[in-house]
C-alpha cells in the first residue's frame, strides 16, 4: 500500500528559474488528489535550492493541505536540506491565516474613522475660536500676538493680492462678454451693469477668492502644519506647555479672517472693472450711464452678503487646512497627501457652503 502514495520528484536545481515549470507540472497531480491522500515530496536529486525553491515547497504543502491531503518530505539532498533550514521551512501544517475583515466590518471601520475625524474637526474649530477670542482679552502669554497675525496677513493676504486681482478681472471680463452677447439680442445692454455688479459681489468675488486662497494659503497652512507634526515640532510645543492650536492656528485664523474679506472687496471691484471694460468697448455704453445703473442696482445687502460668505469661507479654509495638517501620518509623502486632501476638501466645502448660503439668502428674503 505504501508504494501507492503519489510522489512529487524534483531533480536538478530548484530555484527561481525552474520553480514556475515545477509548479505547472505539479498542478495535474494536485488536481487529482483526494481527501486523505498522503503525498510525498522527494528532493533527493535537487542539486541547488534557493529561497524561491524553499517557498515553493511551502506553497505546495499549503495547496495539498487545502485539498484535505497531507504532504511529507520523503528525502532531500544536502543542498535542499540546507536551504530549507536556512529559510526555516518545516513541512508542517501552516499557521492558521489571520482572518481578513469582512465587507461589513470595513464599512463600519470607515464610518467610525469618519465620525472620529468629524469630531476632531469640530473640536479643532471650537479650540481655535475659543483661543482666538480669549486671546483678545488677555494680556499675558495667552494673548493673540499681533506680530504673528500681521505676518500671516502678509503671507495670506498681500502675497495673494496679485493673483486674486488678475483672476477677478478676467472673470469679470468673461462673465460680461458671455452675457453681453445675449443682452444685445434684446437691446438690454444697460443691464450688463446690474448683472456684473450683483454676480461679482454676491457670488463670483467671494467664491473666486476662496478657491484661490484654498489652493494657495490653505495648501501652505496644511503643508507647514503637517511638516511640523512629522518633525515632532508640534510634540515639542506640547512638552513646552504651549497649545499647538493657540500657537499655530490662531494667528492664521485671524490673518485669514481679516484679509479674506479685504481681498473679496478687491476681487469685486476688479470684476466690475472687467465688466465695465466690456460695457464701454463692446456694448458702447457711456461711462456715466454704466456707473449710474451700477449704483442703482447694487444694494448694501449684496456686498454684505458677499462679505459674510467670505468670512465663513476663510474659516472653512483655515480649519480644514489645519485639521488635515494635524492629522498627517507617515513621512514626507504624508505631507503631500495632507496638502492635496486639504485643497480638495476645502474647495468642496466652500462650494457646498456657497450653495447653502444661496438657498438661505434666496428664501430668507
Amino acid at each position, binding site marked *: 500500500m505504501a508504494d501507492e502514495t503519489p510522489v512529487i520528484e524534483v531533480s536538478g536545481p530548484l530555484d*527561481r528559474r525552474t520553480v514556475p515549470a515545477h509548479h505547472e507540472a505539479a498542478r495535474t497531480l494536485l488536481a487529482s488528489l483526494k481527501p486523505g491522500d498522503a503525498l510525498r515530496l522527494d528532493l533527493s536529486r535537487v542539486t541547488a535550492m534557493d529561497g524561491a525553491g524553499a*517557498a515553493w515547497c511551502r506553497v505546495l504543502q499549503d495547496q495539498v493541505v487545502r485539498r484535505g491531503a497531507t504532504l511529507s518530505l520523503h528525502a532531500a539532498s544536502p543542498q535542499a536540506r540546507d536551504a530549507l533550514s536556512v*529559510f526555516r521551512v518545516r513541512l508542517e501544517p501552516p499557521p492558521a491565516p489571520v482572518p481578513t475583515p469582512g465587507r461589513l466590518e470595513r464599512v463600519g471601520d470607515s464610518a467610525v474613522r469618519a465620525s472620529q475625524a468629524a469630531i476632531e474637526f469640530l473640536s479643532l474649530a471650537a479650540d481655535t475660536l475659543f483661543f482666538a477670542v480669549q486671546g483678545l482679552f488677555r494680556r499675558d502669554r495667552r494673548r493673540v500676538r499681533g506680530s504673528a497675525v500681521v505676518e500671516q496677513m502678509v503671507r495670506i493676504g498681500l502675497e495673494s493680492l496679485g493673483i486674486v486681482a488678475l483672476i477677478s478681472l478676467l472673470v469679470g471680463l468673461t462673465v460680461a462678454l458671455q452675457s453681453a452677447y445675449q443682452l444685445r439680442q434684446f437691446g438690454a445692454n444697460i443691464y450688463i451693469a446690474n448683472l456684473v455688479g450683483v454676480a461679482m459681489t454676491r457670488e463670483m468675488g467671494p467664491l473666486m477668492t476662496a478657491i484661490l486662497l484654498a489652493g494657495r494659503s490653505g495648501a501652505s497652512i496644511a503643508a507647514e502644519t503637517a511638516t511640523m507634526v512629522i518633525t515632532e515640532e508640534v510634540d515639542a510645543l506640547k512638552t513646552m506647555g504651549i497649545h499647538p492650536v493657540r500657537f499655530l492656528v490662531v494667528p492664521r485664523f485671524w490673518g485669514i479672517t481679516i484679509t479674506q474679506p479685504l481681498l473679496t472687496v478687491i476681487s469685486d471691484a476688479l470684476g466690475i472693472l472687467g465688466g465695465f471694460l466690456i460695457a464701454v468697448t463692446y456694448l458702447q455704453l457711456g461711462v456715466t450711464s454704466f456707473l449710474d445703473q451700477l449704483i442703482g442696482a447694487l444694494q448694501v445687502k449684496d456686498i454684505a452678503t458677499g462679505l459674510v460668505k467670505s468670512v465663513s469661507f476663510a474659516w472653512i479654509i483655515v480649519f480644514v487646512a489645519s485639521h488635515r495638517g494635524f492629522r498627517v501620518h507617515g513621512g514626507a509623502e504624508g505631507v503631500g497627501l495632507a496638502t492635496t486632501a486639504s485643497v480638495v476638501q476645502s474647495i468642496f466645502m466652500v462650494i457646498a457652503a456657497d450653495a447653502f448660503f444661496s438657498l438661505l439668502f434666496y428664501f430668507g428674503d
Partner: protein
Amino acid sequence: MDAAPVIEVVGVTAGYADTPVLRDLTVRIAPGRVTTIVGGSGCGKSTLLKVIVGLLRPWTGTVRVRGLDLFALEEDERDEALSRIGLLFQQGAMLNSVTVAENVALPLLEHTALPRAVIREVVRLKLELVGLADAAQKLPSELSGGMRKRAALARAIALDPDLLLCDEPSAGLDPQTAADLDRLILRLKETFQMTVVVVTHEIASIETIADDLVMLAPGGRLAFTGSLAQAKASPIPDVQDFFARRTRAAPAETRPLLDFLEGRA
C-alpha cells in the same frame, strides 16, 4: 584567493562633478568570501559600492563583476546581471509609497515568472529571516530606522543573489540585532556560497564575519587588501591603528588649534 575574482576593480578613478573620490583604486574580491571594506568617513567606501553596481561610471579604469563590464552590456543582459546582485543601501532606500511586503516582492515580480502564491511565500520567508514577519503590511515610514534597514536587507536578498553588497548594515541597530545580522550573513555565505561585501566600522562585526579586508585611505586610495589574518599582522600603520582603535597624530595644520584648545598656545 586562487579562484577568479567575482569583482575586479582595476585602476579606477571616480567621483562626483570635478572632485575625484576614488583614485587609481585596484581591488579584487574573491568568490564565496565575506570582504569588509573599512576606512574613515569620506574615504569613498559607498562610492566604491556604487561603482561596482554600475550606479556611477568610473572616469578611468575598469570594473568587472563576474567578468562582465556592466556599462558595456545590453539592457537585458545588464538587468539579468543586476538581478544576481543584492545591494543594501545605507538608508535602506525602501519605496515609501508601498508596504514592506510589496517592497520585497518587487524584484521577484520584475525578474521571475514565479506564481503569486510562491512570491507571497518567498516574501514571508525573507521577512521572517530578518525578524520582520509582523511588519509585512506596514509602510516603511512606520518602521524604526533599524527595522527599515532589516526590511531593506530582506529586499536585497529577495532573489537570492550570489553577490550581496551591504553599506553599513549594522549602523543604527542594537547590538543584538546587529549580531543576528552577522550570523545571517555568515549562514547565507556558507549555505549558498554567496559572496558578500560589507562596508562597516564595527570591529566586533569584522572579527565575526570577515574573511578579507579592504582598507581605503583618505583621498580614496587603497591602504590595504588581504585576508583578515594578514591585516592583523600587517606592519602598515593605518591598519595597525584601525585594529588598535587609535587615531593618528593630528596633521600639522590642525596643531595650533589643538594647542589652543588645550591651553598650550
